């Protein structure tokens, strides 16, 4: 197999198509929701809605990922908290603070930024991979997850896992020639870009709807969200 050709395809036309589908798809999902109709909330507020929103974002981003026991239910099922949290942390660090990825952003949006040294990013990538494995096993054994997981949930795990693992292998030149691993990584990333608007991985966009509504509704009642 000519991996150079495959790599050129995966980094070139296939990437363009995947990015097109990603942009169109995400905006499709966004518009479909936003234009569905927002009834006015006529209930008089007791506390501040905006205050509630600010509090819930601060709590969700700054406190809970690092002090999960603040949420009392942490004791019940620490696996989802720890593994889910570490996975997202690793993901963000690799995608935004990894040098190789920062250069991708730079080529797409025109500017770059400070990045972390490879061994540190590498460590987080490994942690994220292990966390994904833990989440996978959890989804197999947890009774609630068994009930609510369909083919889409398994595909989500797979389609996110492959780019992470191939990226890790690529960085370490593990087992196979570099251009082969790079090709696998790019193909997997392209598939991921196409899959995101078709699946629940788009939750990173809808997160902001749910979190804001949550903060507002709790703030309205004067309760800490």
């Amino acid at each position, binding site marked *: 197999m*000519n991996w*150079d050709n495959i*790599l*050129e395809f995966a*980094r*070139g036309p296939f*990437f*363009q198509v995947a*990015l*097109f*589908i*990603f*942009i*169109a*798809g*995400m*905006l*499709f*999902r*966004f*518009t*479909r*929701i*936003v*234009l*569905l*109709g927002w*009834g006015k*909330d006529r*209930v008089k507020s007791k506390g501040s809605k905006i205050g509630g929103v600010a509090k819930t974002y601060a709590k969700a981003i700054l406190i809970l990922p690092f002090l999960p026991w603040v949420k009392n239910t942490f004791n019940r099922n620490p696996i989802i908290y720890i593994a889910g949290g570490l996975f997202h942390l690793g993901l963000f660090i690799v995608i935004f603070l990894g*040098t*190789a*990825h920062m*250069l*991708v952003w*730079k*080529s*797409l949006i025109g500017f770059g930024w400070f*990045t*972390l*040294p*490879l*061994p*540190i*990013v590498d460590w987080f990538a490994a942690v994220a991979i292990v966390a994904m494995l833990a989440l996978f096993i959890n989804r197999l054994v947890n009774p609630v997850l068994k009930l609510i997981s369909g083919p889409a949930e398994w595909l989500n795990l797979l389609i996110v896992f492959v780019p992470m693992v191939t990226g890790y292998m690529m960085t370490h*030149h593990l087992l196979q020639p*570099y*251009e082969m691993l*790079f090709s696998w990584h790019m193909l997997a990333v392209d598939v991921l870009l196409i899959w995101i608007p078709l699946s629940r991985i788009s939750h990173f966009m809808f997160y902001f709807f749910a979190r804001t*509504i949550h903060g507002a*509704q709790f703030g309205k009642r004067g309760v800490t969200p």
Partner: protein
Amino acid sequence: MQKQGVTRRQFMQMCGVMVGAMGLRVQPPVRESGLPVQMARGFNPITTVAHALQTKPRVPVIWLEFQDCAGCSEALTRSHNPSLVDLVLQYITVEYHETLMAAAGLQAEQNKEDAMKKYAGQYVLVVEGSVPAGIDGNYCTIGGRSALDLLKEAAAGAAAIISTGNCAAFGGIPKAKPNPTDAKGVWEIITDKPVVNIPGCPAIPEATTGTLFNFIVFGKLPELDYLNRPKTYYAQTIHDRCLRRPFYEAGKFAESFDDEGARKGYCLYKLGCKGPTTYNACASIKWSGGLSFPIQSGHPCLGCSEPNFWDGGGFYQGQSAPLDRPTIVTAGAAAAVGVVAGAGIAMANRAQKGRGDKTEPSEGAKS
């Protein structure tokens, strides 16, 4: 060689260097190594090479140049060991070389024809420069004949074909977008014979001479990879052998040319180095007799021994970045498609909602 004052010792030394350059291994004789009796004779490639060079007749070489800059020939003149002079005077007979030969015009062409007839099936054809296929190959003509024709004719009687430089191997610079001449590498045109690719811009001279020598000594081509490149020189990437690799690992990068990081010799990945995907011997054999190579001198690797390196996403763009940046127009079009489709569906959904019995939904989720 004796006439030129080369001693036997110097000659053997040179053979030793060639053996090293070709990557041949020495197997010591039984007494010293403890190897079994069957291998009693041992294999000392140095003597093999020396013997071959002493006894075999000089190999005729026809060197064709097409859409080229003669850079690979230039580089060859700086070959350290063997030097081009040694090569030409002792081991090969150059029957035709546009840039180097003294003859010109119809005489030169006639000499080439004669050599091809006289040494049919024995000569080595070396090609430099890409072959255009556009307008029936007439973007490049020599003596009124297209490069395409000349190549096919020369290849027919060649014992071995070597493409030196990226242009002859993969199309090189003439093949860069939009490839107006429909430039091709030799092996895209000659498909019935094995073609050795020695890519690079230029090719490392020792790679070309080493491959020639392999043919001279053993009468066959060296082991090749999937792009027909000799594994001796092209089995590892620049990244694998790069002297700045520890800085890559430690995340110490030069951010711009001649900044503090650059002056400290940090990794050039952020400046667009294509080292990780470039297979060549620059980082080990280096250039100008082991003097230096681009990264060592502070310039990121261009990936010049890889196919389509000119269109590989920009010399100074990080290698991880996509090959093409989507234009604002494309991105805008994608966004528009998404918004319009989403709005359409939303309207249809709202109509569906309105078909319920109630007038205004209470939408408990507002609370």
